[in-house]
């Protein structure tokens, strides 16, 4: 549905109009844009930082920053890439504020609790079978949750946001070659995590 909206020319022209009105300081246009991007932006932030409270705060900070910087936004740039790059930069700043953590911190960073995959594995065989049958997506999400943030980020931008590699590079502020290598490592890491728990992975 999100993709359909993005592909819809009317929706695109509506977004351009809203951006133009935002630049003129129209609060209704800003509210419309927040509403338009709330699911995608919150999902991206949550995948990135993993903690709902932190994602919630970063979501709000992102729009404050958007309001502050919209006058300097270059309308020739892709708004979504710009919006997500604002969110990305704020997440990095938040990480820098946390001593000893960084965006490329390993899978076990900042989470002393039992990993989600382990929690899933801990069930009895029947429960596991049910999980495999009906909650394969949840298992994949749990394994993705354990990946380093830089890998979670490229996966969500590529597969959930369906961004082009160039757009991902713009959001994360990295070269295209790094996007590719992160995608490769992220997928390999995800597959290794899944196969460790579910031999064969999510075969369809």
């Amino acid at each position, binding site marked *: 549905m999100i993709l359909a909206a993005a592909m819809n020319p009317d929706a695109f022209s509506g977004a351009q109009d809203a951006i133009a009105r935002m630049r003129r300081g129209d609060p209704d246009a800003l509210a419309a844009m*927040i509403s338009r991007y709330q699911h995608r932006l919150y999902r991206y932030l949550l995948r990135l930082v993993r903690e709902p409270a932190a994602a919630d705060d970063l979501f709000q900070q992102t729009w404050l920053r958007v309001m502050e910087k919209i006058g300097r936004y270059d309308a020739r740039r892709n708004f979504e890439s710009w919006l997500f790059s604002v969110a990305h930069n704020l997440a990095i700043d938040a990480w820098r504020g946390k001593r000893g953590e960084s965006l490329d911190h390993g899978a076990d960073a900042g989470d002393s609790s039992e990993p989600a995959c382990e929690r899933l594995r801990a069930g009895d065989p029947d429960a596991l079978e049910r999980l495999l049958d009906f909650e394969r997506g949840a298992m*994949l*999400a749990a394994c993705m949750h354990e990946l380093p943030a830089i890998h979670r980020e490229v996966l969500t931008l590529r597969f959930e946001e369906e961004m082009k590699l160039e757009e991902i590079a713009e959001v994360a502020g990295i070269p295209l070659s790094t996007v590719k290598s992160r995608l490769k490592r992220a*997928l390999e890491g995800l597959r290794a995590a899944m196969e460790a728990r579910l031999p064969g992975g999510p075969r*369809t």
Partner: protein
Amino acid sequence: MSEPESHHADAETLALAAAGALDIQEQRHLEEHARECPACRREMEIWSGYALGLRQLPQPAIPAHLLERTRTRLVQERAAAADRRWDELMLGALALFAWTVGLTFWFVARIVTGGELVIMGANLVRFGTWSAGSTVLVWLTAAVAAIALGRRRRELRRVL
């Protein structure tokens, strides 16, 4: 009959293909190879399963009232910015007003005293002395006003 190991596509290529990150020529080459190689075709299917799974991950629920809370925070921030601009304007106007009053009094004092009002050896109605005194007074007034405005803003923030 399976192909020699060295003929198989490597894991990197297969992962990048699943991510749609190969260029057209690489993708075509891989697909042509997979048509003839069951092992690589199977690997491609597995990677496609991961790609599909990632596109269909369970979606997180939006926190309650996120939209409203964000709007409220934006309104508060906008109001705070407007307050700051107003405070700056008021401080500027106050300084200008104080200077005008000082200059007017200087004229009046010169007329009334005939240009000489000596206290403790200093002629207070000399332009230099008077303007130095006025400047100190203006800065003191501005500092007091700034402190008062800062306190008010902090109290408002506590209330909000």
